[in-house]
């Protein structure tokens, strides 16, 4: 496993995922990789409240959320809060349709370690660092750096 870049260590992430086991595994792997992961959420309003309070550097959002909440609508809301969103869903065609509100898509099924690589890549990408290539499976939407200020 590659060591995380110093600039990425300690970055705050938010996971919005309705499958709790998937969310827990992601959280564990991301924390092991040195990221700070906010409390897990699986609803739109709850996620927005957490995002407003903690301003994560990146939100990992599933398209299908609990209670028929929609991850793409949440991504739109998070974009308005200047929080970049990585869609993590098996609904590939819907993710493709959300290029204006998300910065990338990592379709299920992914391995948690691939997701760690995707998060590292995107955080570096947001900083303008293109020294590493995107990991397998990650689709990066071109609007990334136009819509979000570099993370501090």
């Amino acid at each position, binding site marked *: 496993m*590659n060591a995380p870049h110093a600039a990425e260590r300690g970055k705050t992430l938010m996971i919005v995922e309705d*499958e709790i086991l998937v969310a827990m*595994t992601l959280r564990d792997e991301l924390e092991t990789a040195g990221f700070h992961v906010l409390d897990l959420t699986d609803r739109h309003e709850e996620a927005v409240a957490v995002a407003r309070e903690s301003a994560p550097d990146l939100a990992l959002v599933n398209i299908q959320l609990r209670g028929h909440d929609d991850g793409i609508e949440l991504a739109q809301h998070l974009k308005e809060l200047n929080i970049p969103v990585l869609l993590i869903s*098996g*609904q590939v065609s819907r993710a493709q349709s959300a290029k204006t509100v998300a910065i990338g898509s990592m379709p299920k099924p992914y*391995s*948690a*370690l691939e997701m760690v690589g995707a998060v590292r890549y995107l955080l570096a990408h947001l900083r303008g660092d293109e020294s590493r290539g995107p990991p*397998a499976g990650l689709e990066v939407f071109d609007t990334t750096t136009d819509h979000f200020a570099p993370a501090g």
Partner: protein
Amino acid sequence: MAAHPPIDTEDPAHSLTMAVIEASLNPLLLLDGELRIAGASISFCDAFGIDPATAVGRVLLELGIEEWDDPQLRALLGAVASGTPQIAAFEMELERPGFDTRCLIINASLLVYEDLDQPRLLVAVADVTDARACERSKDEAVERLAVLLREVRHRVANSLQIVSAVLLQNARRTGSAETRDSLTDAHHRVMSVAALERQLSASADGDQSVELRTYFASLCDNIAASMIVDQNKVSLVATGGGVVTARVSVSLGLIVTELVINALKHAFPDGRTGRIEIGYQAHGPNWTLSVSDDGVGMPNDPALIRTGLGTSIVKALARQLEATVDVAPAAPGTIVWIEHIQVALVGDDSGQAPAVVSSDGRRTSPERTI
């Protein structure tokens, strides 16, 4: 009987035309230069509610409530009457009171008879309303199936994701290194199938064929991310390539997963650097999958060679693919071939060792140990 005028000519060509119209099961018309009906098949009269007894002599565009008086049709038929040889596949909608709108395809050709002053127009009318409805219905069915397929894919992806998460959670929490190892291996097997599913999902047209090099590269990325601490020391490379069905690719992917994991566990002890190469070559129906490493090689003492679940999986999947498994020293390292031979290739100059086709159709190479 078809509607036709009294025979006013002995022109045999004209007589033949009238006979064809009379016998035609498809709507046919013969018009004069003024677009008056000179002959109409019974099928035309039946299809469009025309009385055969009074059809002849009437202007086509004035039939019924002038439902045939389409400006484009009028212009096109007028052009044919003026000398344009033909019009092909003009499409129009015919609206008649009390009837559903019909979609018609019209062809018209200019006929010139020696004994007639005026030209004649032979007009064929095809009612494609039902065919179009069938096409639309088929397209809708295909779209519905595509939606269902996407939904199934989504559910499969979710299920694989959950299974993968459970295995990783268990692996993280167990205190036994051996159990953790087994659970991690199981996680890789699930992810091997998952990578295939993801590749198939990316295919917009529902194509079920799999490009192996992309698939193997994805497998390598996943395995490398979890098993190689320093990726500068050991590299995984996919070479060759080919396209196979999803069913074959899932077996090949699992075989590659087992062999790569095995090589990573045993070929590079004590931080040794090296490379693992996955190759796939196909010649017609025959193919060879190879996984080679440049590590320490197999132990000289056969008693030290362990055969575990991974070996059983490789052999079982190879058998399912009607392929043989061969393992040999690679100087340095080890190479494993999975080979499917359906026919013997005469004059194969691919650079491989000469093959011998055994009586049961399997190719053997004397330098390999099975």
